[in-house]
């Protein structure tokens, strides 16, 4: 991970305890989500089945904790609330792109003009850049091929798809989405 700046002993202690608290919140949210998933899948309330569920959930959370994958990339609870705005936006974007691509495919002459382009990812964190690249991939008509040096290499099917990515609307939205993440985790 990147730079964890330590301005002094006291600040270090404070920072450590704050990170510890965030870690506890992450474990708690993961436990709740896993328990809800277990209940939704089994929908049995005999003591034995519920006991299996408790053991499974506790083991999963403990092992994830031990593997250090319950960090701000594994369970970014800070941006969960912002997903409420992001997901409808994503669905609308994907639907619009779907209609464009469907029109291109069904056209008898198929007026496609494939091209490669580089899209700047201005996100602060790795997580934000990955979300940006995945958003581009999920939108039909554009696929992200590579991500390095804050730049996403994109294969676009048509000029329309190109303008959609180069307009920077996606970039703005993802930057807003990741702005909830705490400072100090930049790459």
């Amino acid at each position, binding site marked *: 991970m990147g730079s964890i700046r330590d301005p002094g002993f006291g600040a270090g202690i404070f920072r450590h305890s704050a990170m510890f608290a965030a870690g506890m919140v992450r474990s708690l949210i993961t436990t709740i989500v896993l328990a809800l998933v277990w209940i939704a899948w089994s929908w049995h309330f005999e003591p034995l089945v519920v006991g299996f569920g408790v053991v499974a959930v506790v083991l999963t959370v403990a092992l994830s904790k031990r593997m250090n994958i319950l960090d701000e990339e594994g369970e970014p609870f800070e941006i969960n609330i912002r997903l409420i705005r992001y997901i409808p936006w994503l*669905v609308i974007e994907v639907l619009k792109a779907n209609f464009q691509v469907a029109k291109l495919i069904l056209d008898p002459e198929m007026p*496609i*003009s494939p091209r490669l382009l580089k899209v700047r990812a201005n996100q602060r964190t790795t997580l934000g850049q990955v979300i940006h690249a995945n958003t581009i*991939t999920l939108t*039909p008509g554009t*696929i992200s091929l590579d991500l390095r040096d804050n730049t996403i290499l994109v294969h676009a*099917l048509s000029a329309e798809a190109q303008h959609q990515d180069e307009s920077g609307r996606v970039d703005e939205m993802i930057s807003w989405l990741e702005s909830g993440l705490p400072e100090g985790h930049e790459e």
Partner: protein
Amino acid sequence: MSVLEIISAIFLLGGAIFCVIGGIGVVRLPDFYTRCHGAGVTDTAGAAGILVGLMFIAQPLVIVKLVTILVFLWLTSAASSHALGKAAFASGLRVDDEPIDWTTGLSAHPPAMSDEELAAEESE
């Protein structure tokens, strides 16, 4: 037919149409990278239409499972198309502005990264 069934039928029909359109795209588009876009249509709009259509005629508990399948499909389709595209690009499959030879899938045109770009990268 109740209102819910009619809404469900509309969604199912839309999803089915997008599925077939994507399938046509996978067969009809000229080279590998463009076919990925056709696969994207079936994976996003087709899956979403059919699963949302099923949600309108399902029990509450089943709706949760349908939503989970939808979320999984969207996440994994993005990840696997990126993995496919990256693997193809890394192994040197050409990206062209003009259509590619149907029989080989490869073409003799210059690589995706032109010589100027290579030279610029080397001088850095």
